[in-house]
């Protein structure tokens, strides 16, 4: 199998990033992903159903996520739902995106610091 360069997907689309971040910690179903993103972003980002599954379809086609063979414990499981998890490739892509965003934040903080010190005029 030819190895795809993770950089091919960077920068990640916003919805893809949120979905992949949601399932980074473990498999999750669509409703769970939607709720997790809503809570994490304090209501600022809502993944609407059609958009969510459209993105899920494309993420699966891109090989970044897959339907999970494993399911949570029976008391936590919802038989109607399908669970998704990151693929190894997906994990590498997510790591690369997180690194990019962190680099961006570091650059912004550095600039703000220098402005405060009066070293750079706005």
């Amino acid at each position, binding site marked *: 199998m030819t190895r795809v360069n993770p950089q091919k997907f960077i920068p990640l689309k916003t919805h893809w990033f949120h979905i992949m971040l949601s399932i980074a910690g473990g498999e999750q179903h669509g409703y769970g992903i*939607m709720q997790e993103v809503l809570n994490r972003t304090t209501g600022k980002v809502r993944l609407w*159903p*059609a958009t969510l*599954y459209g993105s899920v379809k494309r993420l699966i086609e891109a090989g970044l996520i897959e339907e999970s063979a494993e399911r949570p414990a029976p008391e936590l499981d919802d038989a109607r739902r399908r669970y998704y998890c990151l693929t190894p490739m997906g994990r590498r892509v997510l790591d690369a995106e997180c690194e990019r965003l962190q680099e961006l934040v570091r650059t912004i903080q550095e600039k703000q610091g220098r402005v405060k010190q009066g070293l750079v005029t706005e």
Partner: protein
Amino acid sequence: MNRPTPSTSSTRQSGFAWRIYRRLAQAFPHEFKLAYGADVMQLGEDVIDEIAKRHGAAGLVRLIADIAIRVPLEYLSEMRGDMRYAMRALLKSPGFALVGIISMGLGIGLTTNVYSSKWAMLFRDLPGAANAKDLVMMQQSADSDLAAVSYYYIEQFREQKSLFTGVAAFETGIPFNVTFQGNLSGKPERVFGQLVSPDYFSVLGVQPQRGRVFSATADRSGDAPFVVISDRFWRNRLNSSPNAIGQILRLNGQIATIVGITPKNFNGALAINPSELFVSITAPAALAPELANDVLHQRNAKEFLAMMCLAPGVTIESAEAGLDAITRRLDEQDSSMAKRTDQGRRVTLLPAGTSVPIPRKLKPALIGFFVALMGLVIALACMNLANMLMARGANRRKELAIRLSVGASRFRLVRQMMSEGILLSMLGGVAGFALAFGLGALNAHFRPPTTLQFETNFYLDWHAGLFAFGLAIICGVGFSLAPALQATKADLTSALKEGSALQLPGYRRIGLRNLLMVVQVAASLMLLLMTGFLVMGISKGTNIQTKFDPSTMVLLSLDPVRDGYSAEKAQGLFEKLPEHLKSTGQVRNIALAAQPPFTSEPERTSLSAEDSPGSSQVVQQVLEETVGAGYFATLNESMLAGRDFALPDERSYADASNALPAVLNESAARGFFGNGNALGKRVRDDKQTYDVVGVVRDMKDLEGLSQSIIYLPLTSRDFARPPGGGITILVRSDAGASPATDVLSAIRNEIALIDPNLNIVNMQTLRSYLDRSRAALRFSIQTYGGIGVFGLVLAAIGLAGVTAYAVAQRRKEIAIRTALGASRAQVLGLVLREGTALVGVGTLLGFLGAVGLAKVVSSLANLFADALKIGTNDPLLLVGAPSLLAAVALLACYVPARRAVKIDPLKALRDE
């Protein structure tokens, strides 16, 4: 799925939203629905109440909008995938793809070229003219040329406010010798333009792109001369100078100031003869000989064309009736006119908002002809591709059966197969557009030698692009739908059992493929014959036979009035010019004329003869050529009766009180006087009486037509106001005396001795003049011939494909027959039999269709009648073309049929 009983006040809203959501979820593409449909429904059900509670109606709208937008996006995504799949499939079959692209490219290219050149010329509104749809002009009669009237008549028409919002007067094809600011005394260029009344632009509804156009208030008699230039003049001759407005030009020796530039692509009314300059008729008469002799106030000076804009709610028929009554009244008031007692219509109006005003009766015939031609060409290409796709579809039958049996929807598979056809068609469309561009450039290159310029600059604009694109989509859908439906027919069991080598039902019966093949052969033959008729007609008709070597005659034109001469000085020049040129020692015969010999652009006039047999007055439409002394002797034409024109005839003065001499050709003499003697008889038009002094044989023009012609003598009037091409001088030298180049330079030197400032125009031998006209005709022949060959090639490809496929399909059957003892000849005969039947039926239908279509087109449009008449009576073509098609078609069947005899029965049966 059951929803929990709602308990909130937004229940109704949620219920309504849920119903819409569910409907939209069903609309997703089949594959998406299979994979995620249930999840989308489940998730929607889970969140709808929460959204209603938290966000109210706005949230529900947002939920619906999300799914409503997503549905078409998923279809688009599938179509993108289909296109990628189709591209891979085409790359895997480069031969098929190439044939398909070439077929569609030729079809779309030829069709787009015909559309953008002919259709645009005939039917598209004049660019820049806002009133194009309301413009009308007068015809002399229903079948003939535009009618010229005096300016007095136009002023009377203008008074009819209930009929017209405006009536403008103009003359077109007016030559100007132009020199430019910064080089006003340099050698002039000859530029064609129009003389227009001040309201011309407002009647047409044309606004300038820069500066101003003429107006009745701003431009009056006695004002300094102004000129409006066309966009083309501004770009080509002034390099789009931003300072063009206010620049000075010298027109025919007079200073004029540029005041405005017309919109892009506007070249005046009657744009088939494009005009680059527009000069008001209020300009001084010295600026244009057409304005001399106070022409605006001469009631019988029928010099102007009337452009009328219909008033709102007025139909062309009612305007015609109203104008007819007015014209009748004005004619009766005109004492100089011969009294007309006929009660028939004197005025016919035709729509004039296009480059070429087309008579109303002719329009449907023309539209029909072009639609039929374009339709045939594109239908051929589509049929060919449909056949090829059917064969391809049949080869994939097992694959498609497997896909259908595991749950693929038929609609999805049909869409995927159609993507291949649409992609092929669009690639063909791109190739076709490039071909149309190339053909357009070639069209512009091959211009016939005419006095007036003809518009050949048919740009491929967005109209043509949209046309080509739309055609490609329609064709792609058209030729791929039937094969896709055929290939996905649900007979899964037999398809899975027998595999791809499935006998398609109906091969020995009337099936779709056989029908397509018959129609293709018929259409190919129709196209071949129709184009063959035209080619034969054009080439046979245009062989001009001169009674001398055309390379011993030199043609040149002079226009001294537009070089600044007065009328008297110009007459003096032409009187002494023959003697001067004879003094070079190179000249055997010399004559003057108002037009080049064998012209296909003569004037037309209506003549009546009072001395016709049976003492009834005969009125004929004849062509008019104006020629000088010794014209026929210069052409080495003996008079059939009477005499040639002589010098005293040139010195005559044309007025209503004395009769001028005239020469008739055979057709005209016969038309007026039957087999009786025409000499000494009189004919007249509405201005002048003529005594017939000679009869000459019919001479064909450059288009191969022999028509009734009256030859009138050149007079002082013609010298004072030379026609658009100037006065043509025909100089014939002795054969073998000197090479043409020597004669040309001797003449040039002699004219320079007379006056070095005289501008010589169009100097060439008669041979090169005839060759140039034939080159343009040859190009027409090649284009039509190419279209015919295109049809032939496509039919051959189609037939070869069908036969090759049939051989592949019947491999098992052929193998069994061979194993049981069938000879090679029997096997070949078996395969060829069906192909021969298809070709035979198609040939018969095509022949009948072509002959019928030719008759219909001829009866509707004189335009094609002559060429088609010659062509449809050509036995070589009537027998040859069907035979050629049949031979090519049978050859196309024979080559793949030979593969049948090479089938190894053991191998074939074992492979099963």
